């Protein structure tokens, strides 16, 4: 069994509505990428599927590439298309 770690996941706007949650603590395997975490979340929350293609991730308040490997305690945010202004 591989070692696990915890990350904080934040949901905003349509992602918040799709998951019914604003944030949670997720347990993931060491070495998990941002993209792999997102795929896990889409399986848990099927409603995320419809915004999946336009979701962007932020890690620790910076936009991140899906290939980024997560670390213990990271704050991962699901960012639907923004509409500030």
């Amino acid at each position, binding site marked *: 069994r591989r070692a696990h770690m915890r990350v904080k996941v934040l949901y905003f706007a*349509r992602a918040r509505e799709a998951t019914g949650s604003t944030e949670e603590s997720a347990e993931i395997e060491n070495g998990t990428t941002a993209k792999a975490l*997102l795929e896990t979340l889409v399986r848990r929350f099927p409603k995320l599927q419809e915004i999946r293609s336009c979701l962007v991730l932020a890690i620790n308040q910076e936009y991140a590439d*899906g290939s980024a490997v997560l670390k213990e305690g990271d704050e991962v945010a699901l*960012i639907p298309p*923004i509409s*500030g202004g």
Partner: protein
Amino acid sequence: MAGIQSDPSAVDTRSSASKFDPQNDFVNVTSEALSLDAAYKAVHSTAAGAITTFSGITRDNFDGKKVVRLEYEAYAPMAIAKLKDICSEIRSKWDVCKIAIFHRTGVVDVGEPSVIIAVSSVHRASGLEAARFGIDELKATVPIWKKELYESGDLWKENSEFKPKAASGD
């Protein structure tokens, strides 16, 4: 720049040579009503010959549908960080005196400002260009969301300018 001199240990890892100047740059994400006068006063300086402001106002209609209410939601700490990044970028591109960028969250009534940008500068061109860059960049990078409520349903808006520097979807 005061901010750099007062903290010589800070290393700016971005490509830009300039950075957010906490003495002269003011950013806020707040549920309270925004005040143009407060933004103007924040950037006012007797060394500045020009103050440019931009206010984004909630419109009463969209695609012919009457807008009943608007709600803004923000990823506040990241939004603040991104607004500071915009100040840095402005300082790397233009010679400006002071910058204020305020964004409101929660319910914003029709006709009220959801965002205010104010820039003071010695010469007018830099302030006018910086304010424009500021609102363009805000719409492209700052994690804030607007939901429009109509008489028949609601809609999360999407800025066509949205272009995070690193896309992670695929």
